[in-house]
């Protein structure tokens, strides 16, 4: 609490000190980064390494940041670059993984769609009302993280490369070693799953919104 108050001070000198001594903030930031990196790299050791490097790099320059939000945005930008570099180096490994998972996921759709390709009765997407209001609720982000974690590793990875790291389609394909058509299939699957998870664990529990 006292840290929060001191960081609100307009004096940059005051906020530098408070960010670096605010262990609760740093611990929380580190936890979020590890979670993000682990989803991307599916290897906790590599994830820890990437987070460590990004965090050390950013904290060295903590003086130039006026507040927590600015530092966090920057730290995540560095982390994204580290992950992108790492993924480029590990292209071949990922390629082998993608092939491995391709068959496992083949039967997914029979749960969602009937044999003619129409929604199974209870799988039909429901109305979410005004989903944007969820973006301001702490609890929603916990559900969102849990749903991301339920995605199979490769789906989570390409989905986050597309939507979070914001790589171009062509770059994702060459990095992961898949065709555009493979990528479209994986993104389609990850969106179907993520949507379903959010609907079941958040949007149909109406009282919250």
């Amino acid at each position: 609490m006292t840290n929060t108050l001191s960081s609100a001070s307009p004096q940059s000198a005051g906020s530098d000190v408070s960010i670096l001594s605010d262990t609760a903030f740093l611990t929380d930031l580190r936890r979020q980064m590890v979670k993000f990196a682990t989803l991307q790299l599916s290897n906790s050791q590599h994830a820890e390494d990437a987070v460590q490097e990004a965090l050390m790099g950013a904290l060295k320059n903590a003086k130039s940041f006026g507040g927590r939000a600015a530092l966090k945005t920057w730290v995540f930008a560095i982390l994204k670059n580290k992950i992108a570099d790492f993924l480029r180096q590990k292209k071949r490994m990922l390629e082998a993984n993608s092939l491995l998972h391709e068959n496992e996921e083949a039967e997914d759709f029979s749960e969602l769609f009937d044999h003619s390709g129409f929604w199974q009765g209870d799988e039909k997407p429901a109305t979410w009302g005004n989903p944007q209001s969820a973006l301001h609720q702490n609890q929603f982000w916990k559900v969102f993280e849990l749903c991301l974690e339920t995605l199979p590793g490769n789906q989570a990875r390409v989905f986050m490369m597309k939507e979070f790291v914001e790589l171009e389609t062509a770059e994702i394909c060459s990095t992961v070693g898949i065709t555009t058509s493979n990528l479209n299939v994986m993104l389609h699957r990850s969106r179907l799953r993520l949507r379903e998870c959010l609907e079941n664990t958040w949007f149909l529990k109406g009282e919250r919104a």
Partner: protein
Amino acid sequence: MMNCHQATRLISESQERDLSLAEKLRLKMHVMMCSGCKNFSLQIPFLSQAMKAYAQGSDEASEDKAKN
């Protein structure tokens, strides 16, 4: 006529590329008659928005918590 599997695939792909006019028309025909795919078409852009807000969203959340 297009089924829901194909419609959701096109809706998903519309996040990656511009659909052709023919694809858009076929999709529109399907979505007009299918409430499930209509909801899906509204939810997919939201997933993208939520993903982009993920880091910043947690920021706002922790700041809100600190204020209270």
